[in-house]
């Protein structure tokens, strides 16, 4: 059941009522109701893999304790390796098996070894890329003595399976989530209403913006051979916005829903398109994944290669981004997507212009001309790279890009004048302006300081927009990862 469905409302409201009434006595009561709801929620999404989720919880809980209770570092390391093999093994088996198997057979064929293959029909357990990253991070943190292992199975199970984030993240860290569920949560009106606001904005981003973009993008991508370069360019523009609206919309809903239970999940997007260079963009895009990759892949790798100076850095960045891409799925398109993003960092490394995350035009109403130019240039680069994300094969992506840069790029696309496109552009302009206005806040729709009339006007406007333009599809882009 997805967040923007009636069945989810039917599920959520009773859980909230029970949570804040009969079960508010202490943290154990609260955690029991949350754990039961989470398991039901996951089973409803895919009951066949509930056993797998429970198995993963049990094994990682046990290994966390084993790592800490072993006295010798060698034994600790062995338990860590066991955990890495188990978690990465799960991921490889369910997500990448056919990809590697196919590649292996193709290599055999190159050497004239006649091998046939039948890919196995493996179903992807929903949320597996998200929860295995959480368990991996947990074990590494325990090994590095960053955190103490959880010795409360109830809390640990909830940390992994907590339903607002189980399907598509944010990828939480034990350090920030476990302390929150150890304590009794006390109802706060401010947090609750802020959660509702964030859900509203997430619904708008998903049901209005992402769906509207999809309506324009799908026919263009599905039939790209027959369109002009100019229309293909517009298609890739709308796809970049769709991807953002879809996933940031989902994330805002997830974080907002969690706030209703008094639990703060980590921020996943910080208006990434308002960035002036690629490193700034990645600090604001899918933050829970990029910080995970930073801590557990990039840092150890660049540490190992530190004696190679800048070359070592470049290799670490490219390797990290290939992995970021590959995390999305077993397809060369994602590897390419990651590789390209890694390559974009090279000029930054050599020019030494790796800035800290910063807010563009902080405290100002509009950006300077130079900032605007940089943001637009970066956006074009990202939207062209996103074609790899959307295409079915790498060849298709290259063909699409080649078709953009053809003579027909200068042909005026008549579709632009259709009402569907015009409505799309107006809605998009509204979306982008609201995001720009709130870029310095904790989330895209943090308007608690506005006066009550303005606030409620906002709610009504957004609500009406959802009512008139909103559509409900059955899935989110990131559910497949």
């Amino acid at each position, binding site marked *: 059941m997805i967040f923007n469905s009636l069945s989810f409302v039917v599920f959520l409201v009773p859980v909230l009522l029970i949570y804040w009434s009969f079960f508010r006595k202490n943290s154990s009561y609260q955690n029991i109701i949350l754990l039961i709801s989470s398991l039901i929620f996951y089973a409803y999404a895919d009951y066949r893999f509930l056993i797998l989720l429970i198995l993963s919880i049990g094994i990682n809980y046990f290994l966390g304790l084993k790592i800490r209770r072993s006295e010798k570092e060698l034994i600790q390391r062995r338990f860590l390796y066991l955990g890495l093999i188990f978690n990465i093994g799960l991921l490889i088996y369910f997500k990448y098996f056919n990809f590697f198997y196919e590649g292996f057979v193709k290599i055999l064929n190159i050497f004239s070894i006649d091998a046939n293959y039948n890919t196995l029909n493996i179903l992807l357990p929903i949320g597996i890329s998200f929860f295995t990253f959480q368990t991996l991070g947990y074990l590494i943190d325990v090994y590095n003595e*960053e955190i103490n292992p959880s010795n409360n199975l109830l809390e640990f199970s909830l940390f992994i399976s907590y339903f607002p984030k189980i399907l598509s993240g944010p990828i939480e860290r034990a350090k920030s989530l476990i302390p929150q569920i150890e304590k009794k949560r006390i109802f706060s009106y401010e947090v609750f209403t802020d959660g509702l606001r964030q859900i509203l904005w997430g619904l708008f981003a998903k049901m209005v913006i992402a769906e509207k973009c999809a309506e324009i993008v799908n026919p263009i991508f599905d039939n790209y051979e027959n369109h002009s370069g100019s229309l293909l360019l517009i298609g890739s523009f709308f796809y970049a916005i769709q991807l953002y609206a879809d996933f940031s919309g989902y994330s805002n809903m997830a974080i907002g829903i969690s706030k209703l239970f008094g639990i703060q999940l980590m921020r996943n997007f910080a208006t990434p398109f308002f960035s002036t260079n690629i490193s700034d963009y990645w600090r604001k895009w899918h933050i829970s994944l990029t910080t995970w990759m930073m801590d557990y892949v990039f840092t150890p790798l660049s540490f190992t290669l530190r004696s190679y100076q800048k070359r070592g850095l470049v290799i670490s960045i490219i390797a990290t981004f290939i992995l970021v891409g590959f995390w999305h799925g077993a397809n060369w398109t994602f590897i390419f997507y990651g590789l390209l993003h890694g390559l974009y960092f090279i000029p930054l*490394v050599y020019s030494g212009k790796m800035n800290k995350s910063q807010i563009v035009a902080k405290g100002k109403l509009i950006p300077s001309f130079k900032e605007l130019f940089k943001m637009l240039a970066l956006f074009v680069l990202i939207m062209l790279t996103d074609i790899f994300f959307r295409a079915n094969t790498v060849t298709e992506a290259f063909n699409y890009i080649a078709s953009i840069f053809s003579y027909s790029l200068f042909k005026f696309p008549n579709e632009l004048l259709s009402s569907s496109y015009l409505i799309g552009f107006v809605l998009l302009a509204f979306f982008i302006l609201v995001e720009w206005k709130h870029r310095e806040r904790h989330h895209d729709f943090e308007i608690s300081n506005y006066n009550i009339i303005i606030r409620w006007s906002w709610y009504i406007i957004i609500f009406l927009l959802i009512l008139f333009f909103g559509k409900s599809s059955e899935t989110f882009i990131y559910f497949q990862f």
Partner: protein
Amino acid sequence: MVKSTEKNLSNFLQIKKYKMETITIKETISKLLESILDHNNFEMHDELTAKDVDGWDSLSHMMILTKIEEAFNIKFKLRDLNKLKNMGSLVSVIQSKI
């Protein structure tokens, strides 16, 4: 009586030696940071973190660590990295290695 005075004195000297080292270590790190980051707009103290220093990000971090390793002729371990929360902890990790 005399003994205890001697003991106090040697304690005092040790503390002094320790303090001297801390100061020299910090001075050395300051100079390294200056040469890598091309500025000295930071104030050296125990609570100083990478966030407070312009240009000290995840990328320059490794280069800074490499220079520190060379300057003190030490080797960090991956596990040490997680202990580096601020300047104070960096200095104590360095001290534990020289």
